[in-house]
């Protein structure tokens, strides 16, 4: 068997490739010149991605690079960045500590600030890839070798897939959100000292950046109290000595999470100076103030409905996200990492402002559960529907917005197909995760009854 390079080399190689791609695209689109006018052009790479292949999908209003820059500029000049009612988390405003990221006016600081920006968006992705490998090693330690093909392919595919590259080039803040979330999961899997606090702090940070991640708290707590190893084949009730101890342990973890969350809230309030940022950031995911089209399901629905019904449907859509948590956590209590994975899929499909980063995270996570692959009922149609939607979405967005020959229905139809793919993937994952148990149970039965030639028919 050929010896694959180790995963740190893989990560380093992919990062270098990405930086080369970004730099060459940057040099091609905005050749360096000493003309003062060019510094006002904005970043041409971001514009190119946001008008081209990543139209509407690389960033949402909550993750847009232009919104980040605008809020940093406003904050730097003493104006309230949340005046418009929608904005990004105040923790990003702490970046105004580095003034070069706010203003690009002198030419030498332009180069420095560009280098700094590239660093700021590359490092989280490197960490994301490393966290993915950590999760993989924690899940299947017996079959893991440092130079096995999966350890090489996992970070490579994550870093070089279009779901990773487009948000990186568009400088969407979804890159940071993914890194933080993957860090939370990685530390929950990896039983290093003090791992629970690290994981909870990172999830608190992630929930601060985007409130939808709150639904990942229950499976994460189960993961912290359990183990990440693959227990799909052996379902058993979640028991940690006794039920009461389980609740007490979970309760203390929840309290710790709330403590970190309150600390971050206070820090955010300190940054901004008032409390209105909560309705602008968290309220934005809940109440949908911006109808900017995105690859999600909410915007079209809410543009079409009368205002009279808006509160009702907002409640419906939000509860739709919440209602999957309990059933999935109960059903997959023996394997909380799998529950987390399914909830990631639900989040990617049904949250209010999804972007390519969310879909990319869900797709990357599929690589961590190879034991379910034989039990998937329709992997190939799911993949084809996803491909169909992924290829048509930018095309229809382009037709609608740039060419003016299509209309919103084209784009929304391709989004619906994407949601169909997401739904198919989640349903298939649930099916396969439960199917393994039946298979294993069947094998157990077969082993017990050895005398008779009992053939357990398994359907695949």
């Amino acid at each position, binding site marked *: 068997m050929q010896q694959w390079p180790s995963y740190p080399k893989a990560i380093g190689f992919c990062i270098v490739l990405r930086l080369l791609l970004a730099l060459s695209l940057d040099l091609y689109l905005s050749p360096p010149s000493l003309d003062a006018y060019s510094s006002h052009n904005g970043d041409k790479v971001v514009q190119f991605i946001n008008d081209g292949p990543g139209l509407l999908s690389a960033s949402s209003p909550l993750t847009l690079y232009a919104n980040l820059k605008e809020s940093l500029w406003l904050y730097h000049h003493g104006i309230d960045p949340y005046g418009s009612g929608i904005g990004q988390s105040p923790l990003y405003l702490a970046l105004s500590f580095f003034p070069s990221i706010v203003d690009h006016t002198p030419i030498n600081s332009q180069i420095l600030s560009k280098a700094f920006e590239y660093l700021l968006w590359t490092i989280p992705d490197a960490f994301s890839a490393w966290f993915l490998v950590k999760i993989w090693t924690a899940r299947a330690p017996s079959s893991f070798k440092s130079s096995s093909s999966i350890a090489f392919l996992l970070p490579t595919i994550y870093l070089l897939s279009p779901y990773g590259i487009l948000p990186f080039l568009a400088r969407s803040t979804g890159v940071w959100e993914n890194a933080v979330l993957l860090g939370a999961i990685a530390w929950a899997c990896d039983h290093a000292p003090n791992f629970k*606090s690290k994981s909870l702090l990172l999830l608190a940070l992630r929930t601060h950046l985007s409130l939808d991640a709150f639904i990942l708290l229950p499976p994460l707590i189960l993961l912290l109290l359990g183990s990440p190893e693959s227990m799909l084949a052996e379902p058993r009730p979640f028991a940690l000595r006794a039920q009461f101890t389980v609740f007490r342990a979970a309760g203390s973890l929840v309290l710790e999470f709330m403590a*970190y969350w309150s*600390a971050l809230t206070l820090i955010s309030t300190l940054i901004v100076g008032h409390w209105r940022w909560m309705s602008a950031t968290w309220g934005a995911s809940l109440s949908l103030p911006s109808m900017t089209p995105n690859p999600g399901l909410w915007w079209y629905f809410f543009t079409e409905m009368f205002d009279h019904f808006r509160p009702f449907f907002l409640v419906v859509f939000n509860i739709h996200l919440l209602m999957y948590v309990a059933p999935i956590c109960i059903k997959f209590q023996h394997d909380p990492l799998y529950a987390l994975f399914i909830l990631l899929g639900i989040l990617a499909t049904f949250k209010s402002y999804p972007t390519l980063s969310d879909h990319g995270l869900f797709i990357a996570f599929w690589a961590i559960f190879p034991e379910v692959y034989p039990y998937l009922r329709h992997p190939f149609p799911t993949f084809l529907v996803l491909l169909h939607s992924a290829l048509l979405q930018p095309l229809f967005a382009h037709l609608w917005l740039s060419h003016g020959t299509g209309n919103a229905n084209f784009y929304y139809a391709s989004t619906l197909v994407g949601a169909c793919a997401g739904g198919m993937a989640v349903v298939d994952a649930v099916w396969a995760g439960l199917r393994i148990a039946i298979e294993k149970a069947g094998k157990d039965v077969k082993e017990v009854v050895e005398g008779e030639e009992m053939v357990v028919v398994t359907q695949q």
Partner: protein
Amino acid sequence: MRLLSFALFLLLYLPLLSPSNASSQHTNNWAVLVCSSRYWFNYRHMANALGMYRTVKRLGIPDSNIILMLADDAACNSRNKFPGSVYANPGRHLDLYGENIEVDYRGYEVTVENFLRLLTGRLPDSFPRSKRLLTDSSSNIFIYLTGHGGNEFLKFQDNEEVSAHDIADAFHQMYEGGRYNEIFFMVDTCQANSMYSKFYSPGILATGSSVVGENSYSHENDYDIGVAVIDSYTHYVLEYMEKVNKTSRLTMADLFTSYDVPKIGSHPGIRSDLFERPLGPGNPDHPMSEYGWGKGWTVEGGGEWMGRESEGGKSARGFREALITDFFGGVVDVDVNNEDNDEFLHLFEYEDSECSPIPKTPLPPSSNKTHSSPATSLPSLFSLLDVLDSYPSLRPHLALTLLVALFVIVFGGVLSGRS
């Protein structure tokens, strides 16, 4: 090699040698029709604009290329005996209001600011496409103003005035932004010729209804409606335009030589010195070269025509004549070039931000400032908030420090207990 590069460098100047923009063929037509008066007694100005609108539409410019600015208070005025209609002739033969007119700026939206912003394109993003002049460098624009005016000003809605200098500057901004190929400017007010006297951008042909010091008069009253229904100058221009259809080869000189001073009641003027193309020979009975002379013209020195001297040289340069359908014709090719407009607008946006910096206002203080309880910890809280307000950069620095401290505490393992 150097010689070759120098020759190539010279080639960059080749576009300067080419004929200027004005003689190049236009590809689309736009019309901006403005009635700057309101109230019932200015019914005739509404009828002027609506009559011109109907003519412009009949000759082929679609509603999407017409910006109609009216106060629009005549048709449904409670004094209107024929509600929902606006007529331009005493017999009420033709309802100009009809059922499918599109008024883009109505009522109190007809302001000087909106008019100038419409021309220059410096509108906020919230303005819809129907309210924008989406012209490009190959658009011919017909701009028609009517209302009450005076020497170098036009009164808008009885409230404010736009001066000839403002319009001239707006036209020059349009020229520099490549927002027109040629402009035909027609104005029907008192002392109208003063409105075009200040233009200085190339490619503009202008005509007005009366000289400085002279009034323009209404044409006819309708005794059932009770007010004057049309202005004299516009009436005769529209009457002439009825002879024009989409395929006419009638030149602008034919229009200008049709002016009949005894009938119109005032002395219309022309300005063509900024316009590069020849106006044409005119009516053979009273050709263009005799504009302003002959019977009916009583002004000394000939009827007012700025650019009479340069008219001869134009035909020598081989440009084709200006046809009426150049400005009133149908749309040949609509091409909205948004990227150029956006870059141009971005230039102006940044210049604005440098000229008028946003004042630095301190961030609002935290809402939990109370003056009631005299606990010992509160004075320190007050002073902390004051310090934070007076040093605005302290907030992110402090917050970043706290954030880093939190992460160091958790990740450094100081928080022991549960592992």
